[in-house]
């Protein structure tokens, strides 16, 4: 009973966290990451077709050969051993350029820098072009800003929550001291 009750409480709290902690509008950087993950999977044995379907969901499938050369052998593994996405530069016309650093599993490309061009339609982003690297845009490991930055107000809110938590703890402890004891131990 305790386990089931705890499970129900945790599922409810998890659902609450998921609904409060997410936003409906996507970030282009996140979509670029998902597209890259799908593109990297297109060379994996057994999941290639599914990966192409997922890549099509986030961008133009015709762009896949620009990052994964058709004749290159990856021994059935994913094409990239690592990828890093930087902060996007957005334009007023609803497009964004996302800096990317890719490490290829094999082949002459090694580590490659590109800029993905995404366009927003009805609140969701799609990858529409793979451009040469931008001199201004950089990934975090090369001195660029992170994908997103928590604003200072968030840290102030966190501090308020911390103070409130301290207050709640004090209140609970005083209640525990005052309320009558039901039974004494042996």
């Amino acid at each position, binding site marked *: 009973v*305790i386990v089931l009750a*705890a*499970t129900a409480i*945790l*599922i409810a709290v*998890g659902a609450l*966290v998921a609904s*409060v*902690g*997410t*936003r*409906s509008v*996507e*970030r282009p*950087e*996140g979509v670029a*990451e*998902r597209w890259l*993950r799908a593109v*990297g*999977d297109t060379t994996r044995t057994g999941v290639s077709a599914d*990966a192409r379907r*997922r890549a099509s969901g986030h961008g133009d499938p015709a762009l896949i050969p620009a990052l994964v050369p058709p004749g290159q052998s990856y021994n059935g*593994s994913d094409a990239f*051993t*690592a990828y*890093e*996405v930087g902060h996007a530069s957005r334009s007023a016309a609803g497009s964004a350029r996302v800096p990317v*650093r890719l*490490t290829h*599993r094999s082949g002459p490309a090694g580590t490659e820098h590109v800029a993905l061009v995404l366009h927003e339609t009805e609140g969701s982003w799609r990858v529409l072009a793979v451009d040469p690297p931008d001199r201004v845009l950089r*990934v*975090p*490991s*090369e*001195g660029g800003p*992170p*994908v*997103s*930055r*928590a604003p200072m107000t*968030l*840290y102030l809110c*966190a*501090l308020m*929550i*911390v103070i409130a*938590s*301290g207050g709640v*703890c004090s209140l*609970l*402890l005083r209640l*525990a*001291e005052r309320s009558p*004891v*039901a*039974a*004494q*131990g*042996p």
Partner: protein
Amino acid sequence: VTPGEPTAASFASAGIPTNFDPLSIGAPDAQIGLRRDPRYLRLLLVLLVSAAFFEGYDSSILALLLPNIQATFHVSEAALGITRIPIELGLFAAFFVARLSDRVGRRPMLLWSVVGYTAFTALTAASWDIWSFAAFQFASRIFLGAEFAVGVTMIVEEFPTERRARALGTLLTFSAVGTIVVGILLGAGLQDGPLEWRAFYVIGLAPLLMLAVLRRRLQETARFEAIRTGLLRPTRQLDLFEPWRTPARRNLLAVGLLHMLRSIPLFGSTAWWAFYAERERGFSATEVAVFIICAYGLGCIGYYVCGRAMERFGRRPTAVAYLTGGLAFSLLLFQTASKPVSFIALLLAVFFGLGMGPVMSAFATELFPTHLRGQSAAWVRNVFEIAGYVFGPALVGVLGDHANGAIGNVGDTISALMLLQLPCVWLIWRYLPETKGLDLARVTS
């Protein structure tokens, strides 16, 4: 001892992994003929060490291979975080499973735990999506948690008092070794082989081989056997809610809240550091492996220093210093872009953050009367602290999701969560008594 003259002694309740101060201490082992042959104790330790090793190993796979698992199941950071809720709930359920060993015996419980753990670890390696992965890991965690808890109980019941601390120390050390081995395998590129990250779970089948060889030599604990045959009389088993009906509930609440507020950011950060390093700071898998091996290898000195400091300076100053150090270096770790600074910060974050385990264990045991100590420690560990295991990683995943998270950045999310450790300092300073050099009876009175 004749069956007609039951001796007042008891065996420790299982399922209390952090309670190493069982009710049975003080029983004249030699007089009642429960001492084991040293060779058997060595064999037992070898068997139990594998439980501790895989406890550390299994927990670390998920933390260090999170980017690989995400890539295989192509899920968002939020989904990765949410799936940690059912997975870590397995450790909560393990507490109740381990308590079954009070009825069925330690030996069968340990053997079946090993079988269950290895079966579900094998199934984890064959999982087809993130939800099957979570379901198999949930079951695996139940058996792993039970195995570890029963292992601790067997050491407490079988080893003589003078050797017990060293045996428990060996057990805990191998838990840290499990983490280091995952780092070594990661550095060796096991995840780049044909089985990818699944190969790490295939290695989890090793305990079954050991069990097949050694199971016939594993015996039921002498203390449990003596109670079953009526040579010993068990003390009354307390109701789980007993501590809440006594004045000890004030300390239980204070210590429980302290553990919960510390564990949410702590487990959020340990679960997501490798992901943060690879995806947000551009570390390679090899760099992550080297950082982890060094940090856990050298950072474990924190345990030793903490133990000495709490005896020399007291529990409260040591805990406050470790909390402050852990907070400061964790913030630095998740904010710096420099790899050398990150290395130093990780080392010191492990030193202070994980190294304060001894003083937290002291709070969880010393502040309760002997007859309530086991149940109180169980509440602290299996309810309050597990809440951190469950919610810490989930919060980081949901808030730090790169596409849809409210913060959108794992590093900043963990930094904000770290501030939750500030009320811990307040709780320690305002509500917990200093127990250094005091007799336990005086503390609890």
